[in-house]
Each structure stands twice: as C-alpha cells, then as structure tokens.
C-alpha cells in the first residue's frame, strides 16, 4: 500500500530513518519544528528490516532523507545481528551466530553482542536503504541523485569501520594516530608492539561506537596494564564481554590476554595511544561537528582516565577556555584537520570528529569519525544547535543547487 501524498507535497519534506521515539529522532523533529518545517516521517529500522515498511512509501521528489543511529534499542540490535547472519565476510575468523539464535538473544545490560556480525548486518541494511532509494522516482529537474541525503549509506558504513576509516583518513593526509595494522590475538599485538617499539596502544572494536569495547593497554616489558570499560564474565565456559560505565584496570597479563583475545574475535583496530594534553587538571579531547565541510560545534571532553567519551560521566569543558589555552594557530590547525578528515566523506553533510592534542598542543590527531556524533544538545554554534545548523546548511546547499539548475535551464 502506498501512502498518498500529503497536502504539503510541494513543501520541504523530510524522512528520518531511525528508532521512533528515540531521543535523536525527537530532537530532530524539534529542530524541524523550530525552523517551521514540517515534521519528518519516521521510518523505523525495525519495519525496514522486517519488510513492513519501505522507503518508496514515504520518499518522493524533493524529500530529504536523514539516517539516524540505530543504537540504544535492543530489538533493533538483535534484528541487525540477525540481518548479518547471512552476510558473507571476507574474513571468517570472527564470532558469528545463526539468524535464529540472534533472534532468540536476550537483553543483558551492557553485553557486547557479536559486533562484527552487527556491522555486517548494519551494512546490509544500509545497502537496502540505498537500493530502496534507487527505486524512488528520480526528479527531473535536478541532475544530482535525488532525493537528497543528509548522510550517505556507503559513507556511514565506512565511518563505522575503524580500520578502513583510519586508512581513508591517512590517505587523505589527515593527521591520525599511527595504526599498528590488523592483529588477531594478544600475542600478535605484543609482537607488533615490540617490532614498532610502541608500548602504549588503544585496542578498539573495529565497528564499535563510543567507548564500546575499547582498551588502553600499556606495558614496559615487566608490567602490564589495561584500562577499559569492558568487564568480562565467564558463563558456561564462554567469555562474555560487557560495557560498563566504570573504568576498570587489569594488571594481570593472563587476564589482559583473555580480554584482548576476546575482542580480537570480533575484529579490532589498533592504534598508538598518543599522549593527550591536559586541561583543568584533566586529560581531554575534542568532539568537533563538521557540517557542510566546516568545523562548527566543538566541545571539550575532560576525563581522569584515558577514555574521554561523554557518556562515561565525564565533564564537558568550556570550549572557549580550551581554545584560548590551545592557542589560535594550533586550534585553527585542528579545525582544518577535522575538515580535511571530512573530505573523505563528500556525500555526508555532517559527522562528529574526535580529535586529541598532544601535550603542550604541539600536534593533534583525529581519533574517530562518528557518523552519528552530532548529538550535542545545548552546544551552540552561531546561535544554533547541531541539528538546526545542519538543516540550515542543507537549505543553503539546496538553494545553491536550485540557482545553478535555474541558470543551466536559462
């Protein structure tokens, strides 16, 4: 059944793919309302995955499509893992689960469930979105693919693959923390660290978001220390991993090996743990939202541990005070680095970039590109929060496009 076009057919029309009722979707609707734009039609991930809904039902000429995070919803997580069951993986060594077993998974707070397969499932979903969009009737007047995306499925997939994303950033010339290449076990990691004379690394789940499955590991040959939010529990002989809000420190080499090995079974990205600069008696990094190629909203994330992610109850620092301390030249270089990083994603209107400064602000490096890293309520740039600024940038781009088309037509 096709939904009939509503009365505001000729006005701007938005579709958001996300989890209905989620904070992200609500905030986006609020941003639309504030700009006196009609509310977006929400297409839920679950309905897309089950086939209950499809984009051609909602999308028409001129529709702007926004893809939101599928996170924070266990049913969706389970459905994505199930969707990944059939996906082939070039590398078969990672933990997998059958579609049926995925559908039977029970919710356990913080449990890290098959992140590699989740990623494969999410990629399949992004491809499905792309295919469905291709079925939507093309617009006649615009030469560019239409309807318009706020973000592109293929680029979201790239951002969610930390290994590939890191490579893309490097080849673009953005400053990043040096990677140590693929490793499949703790022993391999230790060997690689020895070869490269590196004794501090971050081991991250290749497709994890936020601080999910991140370990800061250091050794001086005789001592070992892993700082992490991951907790382990053994159940029926199986080692289970959980994300917690508490920072834990493991010092037992065997325990650390077990933890890293378990993460490796779900594919990891390893990079040097660059020393971070301090501010206000904390270590810190920046989250910078780049919109339409320009570094806009910035927030400093202060922490007492190597993990700076905001959801770990860390503090937000006053970005202006940080900017002053960093100094004009270093700050400008950092913003340029974020913008350069975003050039890897030409079809994406925005992303949240995490960036660190080394002590004394000598250098900076991009550490993450977060496809959905623009959720920063209360942070303003030129008087607007992130979602509103994105919509404004989008409107600007559309106006330019229309003007160009008009000139061409004339």
């Amino acid at each position, binding site marked *: 059944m096709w939904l009939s076009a509503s009365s505001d057919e000729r006005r701007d029309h938005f579709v958001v793919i996300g989890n209905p009722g989620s904070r992200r979707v609500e905030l986006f609707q609020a941003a639309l309302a504030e700009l006196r734009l009609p509310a977006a039609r929400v297409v839920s991930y679950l309905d897309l995955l089950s086939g209950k809904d499809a984009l051609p039902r909602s999308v028409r000429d001129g529709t702007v499509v926004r893809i939101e995070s599928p996170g924070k919803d266990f049913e969706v997580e389970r459905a994505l893992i199930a969707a990944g069951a059939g996906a082939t993986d070039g590398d078969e060594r990672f933990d997998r689960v059958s579609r049926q077993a995925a559908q039977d998974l029970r919710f356990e707070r913080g449990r890290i469930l098959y992140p590699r397969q989740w990623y494969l499932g999410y990629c399949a979903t992004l491809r499905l979105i792309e295919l469905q969009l291709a079925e939507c009737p093309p617009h006649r007047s615009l030469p560019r693919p239409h309807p318009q995306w706020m973000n592109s499925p293929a680029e979201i997939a790239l951002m969610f693959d930390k290994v590939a994303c890191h490579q893309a950033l490097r080849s673009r010339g953005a400053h990043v923390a040096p990677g140590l290449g693929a490793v499949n076990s703790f022993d391999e990691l230790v060997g690689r660290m020895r070869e490269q004379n590196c004794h501090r690394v971050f081991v991250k789940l290749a497709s994890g978001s936020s601080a999910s499955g991140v370990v800061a590991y*250091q050794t001086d040959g005789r001592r070992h220390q892993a700082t992490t939010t991951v907790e382990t529990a053994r159940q029926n002989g199986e080692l289970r991993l959980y994300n917690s809000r508490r920072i834990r420190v493991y010092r037992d080499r065997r325990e650390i090996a077990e933890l890293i090995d378990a993460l490796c079974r779900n594919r990891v990205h390893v990079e040097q743990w660059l020393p971070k600069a301090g501010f206000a008696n*904390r*270590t810190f990094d920046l989250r910078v939202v780049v919109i339409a190629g320009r570094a806009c909203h910035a927030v400093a994330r202060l922490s007492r541990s190597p993990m700076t992610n905001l959801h770990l109850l860390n503090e937000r620092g006053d970005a202006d005070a940080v900017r002053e301390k960093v100094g004009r030249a270093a700050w400008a270089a950092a913003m340029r680095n974020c913008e350069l990083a975003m050039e890897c994603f030409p079809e994406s209107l925005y992303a949240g970039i995490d960036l660190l400064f080394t*002590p004394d602000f000598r250098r900076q490096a991009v550490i993450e590109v977060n496809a959905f890293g623009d959720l920063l309520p209360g942070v303003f740039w030129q008087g607007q929060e992130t979602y509103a600024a994105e919509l404004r940038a989008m409107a600007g781009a559309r106006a330019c496009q229309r003007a160009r088309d008009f000139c061409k037509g004339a």
Partner: protein
Amino acid sequence: MIYEHIANFAGKPVKDWEAQSGIQDPEGACYALRLSYEEAEEGRRWADKFAAFLDDPSSSQVSGIVIGDWGLLSSAIDETAAPVVEALVAARDRLPKLRAIFFGDIIGEECEISWIRQSDISPLFTAYPQLEHFCVRGGDGLSLGALKHNRLKSLIIQSGGLGVNVVREVVAADLPELEHLELWLGEENYGGDATVTDLAPILDGGLFPKLKYLGLRDSQITDEIARAVAMAPVVERIRVLDLSLGTLTDEGAAALLDSPAIARLEKLDVHHHFCSEEMTTKLQSLGVEVDASEREKPDIYGDEAWRYVAVGE
C-alpha cells in the same frame, strides 16, 4: 594522575627549551628539557637535546631546569633515569648558576608515575652544592643516598607510592636550610609502604630547623597522619601544613580541628579529601586559610568504600 606539565617551578615560569627559540630569560624562567612525542617519533634523543642546550651560549646563566620525558614514551621505557643523572652531573661546570632542578616532569599520559624508573640521585646533590630547589617525580628505584646539603631550601618527592627506604633517607638527611619538605606518600600497591612511625622523626620537630612548610601529601593513610600531626611538635614550628591529594575523612579532620596548634598555622591544605559537607564547613571556619576544595566521594564496591589518592598508579 598528573595531567599537565608544570607551568611554574621555584617561583619561575617554565618554558620549553627548543633550539630555535633558545634561551631568552636565563634568570627569570626555568627551562624544560623534554623529548616530546613528536621528537621521539623523529628518532631524536634526549641526550642530544640536552647537549644542544648546553651548547647554547646562555645556558651557563640558567638558574632552573626541568627535566621532562627523557624517552619513556619511546625507547627508554625499560631503562632507569641513571643516564640522565649522569648527564646532569657531567654538566656541572657548564651550569654554574643552576639553583633549581625538577627531575621528571612527566605526566600520566606520557608514563604512569609509578612506572618512571628512577635511580640513585645522590650524585646530583654533590655536583650542585648551590642547589636550592629540588623536585623529583617517581619513587620506583629512587634513592637519595646519604643526603647532606647546605643550601637546599625545598625538597619535593612526588610519587604514587614512596618506599620506606626513601622516607628513611629523608629523615636521616642533613639539610640545615630546608624550608619546604613535601613527600607524596602514595599507595601501598605502588610501593608506598611508609607508616606514621617512619614519619615520626619529622613530626617530632627535631629535624630541619628552618622548616616552614610540611607536605605529607597524596597519602592512603592521611587520617593516621592527621591524628599524629595534630599533636606533633613540628606543627608549632611550621606555617603551612599540606595534607592534600590524600584520603582525609571526618575522622582525621576532627583530630585537626581539636588541635590548638593547627589553628595557629597560616594555612592548612587538605584539597582532594573525603570529608562530609558538614566537616568541610567546620574546617573552613578554622580561622586560618584552608583549602578544602575537591571534595571526593568514595567508590563503592559492594559493602566496601574505597578512597583513592589523587596520584596513584
């Protein structure tokens, strides 16, 4: 954990020494010699940087230096600081004006404080008889030897766990001019095994006739120290008592409040503590300058409350 390089030392601002900028203010600033991550990546070595510093024509006028990371982030993680001590000792004739040394301004993001491998630093005191200010960070492998020095005014030992051997060397030291003594005692897990009994010679007030500032900081046993120090003769002689960065609770604070000598200090510093709000207010109304900022909450695991020092690891 320590997050930032020091901005001031021995009353002077600290500037990083770089070959390009050179030495602009040899008397008014302390110069930091640190191998940054970037320099280490380029394969540069601390010893070469120090040699270049000594070749700077103004280095003979420098009054204070800060020794930063000597390569712990790269190659020297499993080496002790002995070669750095040797380099400083060998440079004694080229740094005739040197009055202040900070040995190990290394932040946690460069190397955990308890992973810094110190060594016997006693040759420094012999090599620099004019030294007035000395600070060292890292207690692992540290030794002061039989310390006798006629000019030293301030001695600061920062650690995440200070071994009783070092505390014994401090109490056996002959430092007639010492005004400022600061020991970061740390946690037992990281080698901080000194007890209040080991500190008794300091508390008895018979040592260091010119002592004005006593810091027994970053301690896991701050309450015990507070109880002992509240009644100790040394408090009658000093102006500042610093029990900050530690684990002070209402129990230790009550002992401090009961002590008439504490109320005659110029300043009591207990910042980073675990006192109740009520007790914090009482401390603040002691009538002397009190820093009771950074009120911390214990970590609760099951039935147990854990109170951590500010700088451990």
